[in-house]
């Protein structure tokens, strides 16, 4: 499975890509390369806003949300109070890249464990491949981020609200569809079970996100 033809299929014909994944031997190196590439490009474009404009709202929102996310705090030195200074951008890029890798690997482990306990035979490396190739849609999101950095000149106050609506839509609509179809090609699970399995990640991560951000949810009620 050539890397570039797989990359092209991931954006144009994901069904064909997942069929190829199911037929061929899993390649961890290609999967890790895809994860690093897609997440790296997205984070680079987000940080470009900070480099070009200083206190760009897309970057500051991303930085705040990732630094205060409960999983990030307890899987890094942040729970001991160590934060990277905001002027060390290369280190911050690395920190955000590791965060995004965690945000793909942890749900993947969660899904694999649930499939394992449902007594369905599935190869761990193939599940990893499905998740890592799904991350290729982040390259489209990186392009959208670049567009919104331009929209900043037209609407500097609200552009990040619209951007983050699209950002969430990618993670709630586009990526689940890819994962549901991908898991269908590598396992015998029905569409119903796969949809439940993947969409169940949403409330789990929503609850985790509200741990430090509940004031946003509960403000109308208080």
């Amino acid at each position, binding site marked *: 499975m050539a890397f570039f033809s797989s990359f092209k299929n991931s954006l144009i014909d*994901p069904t064909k890509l997942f069929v190829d994944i199911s037929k061929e031997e899993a390649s961890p190196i290609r999967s890790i390369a895809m994860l690093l590439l897609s997440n790296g490009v997205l984070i680079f474009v987000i940080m470009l806003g900070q480099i070009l404009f200083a206190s760009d709202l897309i970057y500051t929102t991303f930085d705040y949300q990732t630094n205060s996310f409960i999983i990030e705090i307890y899987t890094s030195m942040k729970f001991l109070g160590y934060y990277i200074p905001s002027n060390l951008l290369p280190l911050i890029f690395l920190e955000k890249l590791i965060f995004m890798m965690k945000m793909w690997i942890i749900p993947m482990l969660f899904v694999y464990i649930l499939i394992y306990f449902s007594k369905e035979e599935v190869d761990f490396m193939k599940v990893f491949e499905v998740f890592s190739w799904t991350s290729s849609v982040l390259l489209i999101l990186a392009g959208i981020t670049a567009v919104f950095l331009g929209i900043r000149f037209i609407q500097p106050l609200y552009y990040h609200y619209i951007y983050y609506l699209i950002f969430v839509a990618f993670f709630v*609509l586009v990526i689940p569809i890819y994962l*549901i*179809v991908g898991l*269908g090609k590598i396992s015998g699970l*029905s*569409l119903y079970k796969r*949809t439940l399995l993947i*969409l169940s990640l949403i409330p789990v991560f929503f609850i985790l996100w509200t741990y430090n951000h509940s004031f946003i*949810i509960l403000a109308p009620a208080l």
Partner: protein
Amino acid sequence: MRDTLELFTKIITDPGEFAEKSKDKSLYILLLLIPFNGFILGSLYIMSHFYVTTFLHPIFWIIAPLVGTLLSSQLGVFLGVYLLLATICKDDKKSKSLRVLAFNFSIAYTLYLGLAAAVIFPFLFSHNWASAIYFYDISHVILNIWIAALCAQAIQKIREETEIRTLFKVFTSYFSAYGVGALLYLIFSAMLVVSIIR
């Protein structure tokens, strides 16, 4: 009767088969379920907004079904889904898939409302409104995920198309219809509040 009860269990165990077999019964049960859903939702609304904490209060029995039926986001979702799928589904299976989908929503919402009521009733009685709303939000998300999975399986069974296309239609229709339902809910809530204030 036995066939109908078996169908009710199929919605959880095999939604695809449920979609195939329930198409002729869907409309009648839908008519029975909307007032039932409305009663539960209306009672939750009344209790949370007007501090009526007893089932014996006369306002509960009279106004709750009426308010609930009007305010029920289920009605908005049903209408939203029906309208959107009427646009998307342009073949002779349109009416079958729409009825099945609308019925699936009604069943799922009935179970959803029962679950939400069981979760948040203790909080309402203890006047812990913030926690009640938080758990209502969570139960809302969980049960709507289940509805989306039911719809995807049901439509995949009765329409021959790729999974990506089915999932895309279900997700976009569902989330768009949810927006319509939420808008209707807000409008009716505002109308009720204004009428009470006056």
